[in-house]
């Protein structure tokens, strides 16, 4: 569960990225976050991950109160969240396989489980052939899919995806949102930032629109795919 109470973020440069945001995403929800460039979407995500701290207000994530969370507990928080970063953030010195497996190694998962789980997740995003490649040897879309695989691999309670289809062609984009949808149906909360209105229109669901740091719109709309009986 993610809960924002009167959260404001002002960067040291003086930019007000978020302004008194109130937001509640319940366990099992699926929400799209949309908004123009620089609206504050990534800032929202950085808050949830405790990459930055709120200047004002409280952020609760999966039962952790982030303003009171001690430094040593941050890894515990992050392990409950799978993130696709907008800039991917793959470890350049590790292969695709190792990048994905790393998340499992961090939680001390059994070697056997790692050996079966990692290839499965990599195949979910269609990168079976690239498991042994390094991030610099991948195309933009391939890197993005590795980031997605990494976010899924340890079955987190909450998946956050910042523009996970920004570098991916339409057909594959639909597949990826489908994948996130089906994971959501198994109980995982999913928060997906996107600027591809086609996708949002097609899938429908809860739409949170951020505009200049405030929530301009937060409603559930019907998706066209249901109407058209996909």
């Amino acid at each position: 569960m993610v809960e924002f109470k009167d959260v404001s973020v002002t960067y040291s440069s003086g930019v007000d990225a978020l302004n008194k945001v109130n937001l509640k995403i319940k366990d099992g929800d699926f929400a799209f976050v949309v908004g123009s460039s620089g609206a504050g979407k990534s800032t929202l995500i950085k808050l949830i991950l405790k990459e930055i701290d709120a200047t004002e207000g409280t952020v609760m994530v999966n039962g952790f109160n982030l303003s009171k969370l001690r430094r040593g507990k941050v890894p515990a928080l992050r392990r409950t969240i799978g993130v696709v970063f907008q800039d991917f953030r793959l470890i350049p010195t590790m292969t695709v396989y190792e990048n994905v497996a790393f998340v499992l190694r961090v939680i001390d998962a059994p070697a056997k489980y790692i050996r079966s789980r990692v290839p499965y997740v990599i195949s979910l995003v269609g990168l079976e052939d690239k498991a042994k490649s390094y991030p610099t040897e991948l195309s933009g879309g391939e890197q993005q899919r590795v980031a997605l695989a990494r976010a899924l691999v340890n079955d987190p309670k909450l998946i956050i995806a910042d523009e996970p289809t920004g570098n991916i062609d339409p057909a594959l984009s639909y597949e990826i949102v489908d994948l996130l949808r089906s994971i959501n149906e198994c109980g995982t909360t999913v928060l997906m930032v996107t600027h591809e209105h086609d996708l949002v229109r097609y899938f429908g669901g809860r739409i949170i629109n951020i505009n200049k740091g405030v929530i301009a719109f937060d409603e559930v709309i019907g998706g066209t795919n249901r109407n058209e009986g996909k």
Partner: protein
Amino acid sequence: MKASSARYLVGQGMKSIWRNRMMSFASFCIILVSLLMVGMSVLVTINLNRIISGIEDQSEAAVTIKDDIGEDRQKALQKEIEALSNVATVEFYSKDEAWKNMKKDMSDEQQDLFRYADDNPLPDTFRVTVKDISLMADTSVQIELLDDVDSVKSPTQFADVLVSIKNILMIIMTCVIAALIVVCLIIISNTTRASVFARRKEINIMKYVGATNTFIRIPFFIEGMVVGIFAAGAALLLTKFAYEGVYNIFKNDMSLWSILGIDNLYPFAKMFVKVTASYIIAGAVIGALGTSISASKHLKV
């Protein structure tokens, strides 16, 4: 932690040595050089110390004893002197011997002069060496106070000079070694910091996906330790060659041999175990701590 995780972390440390080979090589060079500089300076100091002690050991006081005290009393006196706490050795030097040696050293003119002196004018003496040359003056007085001792001639001025040379040398060498250690720590910390700095993004990413600080630090620790051990090995080899090179120069140059006494230099074999242990431990500790401390700077995200 599972055995498989431990294996993984160790493996990562090893791999990253090769992956960051440029930086590993830099650390290797710098630890090597640091160990060499400090190690060599310590070895030089140890040997200088020994050479000076050797010279000290050879400097002796001449104790003139009263005439005709008889052989028993003379032996007793030797015992008494030997019993003094700072006395190392006491050797009897009869007046006949002294006279013979004196005549040998004289020029022909002087010998001519003595041709007519029928009696040996020199006294019997003891040659006394001391344990601690800086206490030579005190010891002389103690000997002088004994019965049947006529006078004590001790090289107190020479002793003073030797002691002050030794003190100054030790101060200088201690300063040099301390300075070198500081210098090496600066260099090593800068190098490991630079080497880790190039990987700060990697460290950040690991933190963002939930790795604990320990989990991130262990491979760095192992990486640094292994590089440090390799550097120590190389330093050991170089030290051996350099040391034995200098040792052989001294051994082969007879004139130096006679001044310093080759016996006063330690052969390398005698110190091998200590040097090896110090190098390996220092290398491993320096490498491991340097690298993992540098890594810690980037862990606060």
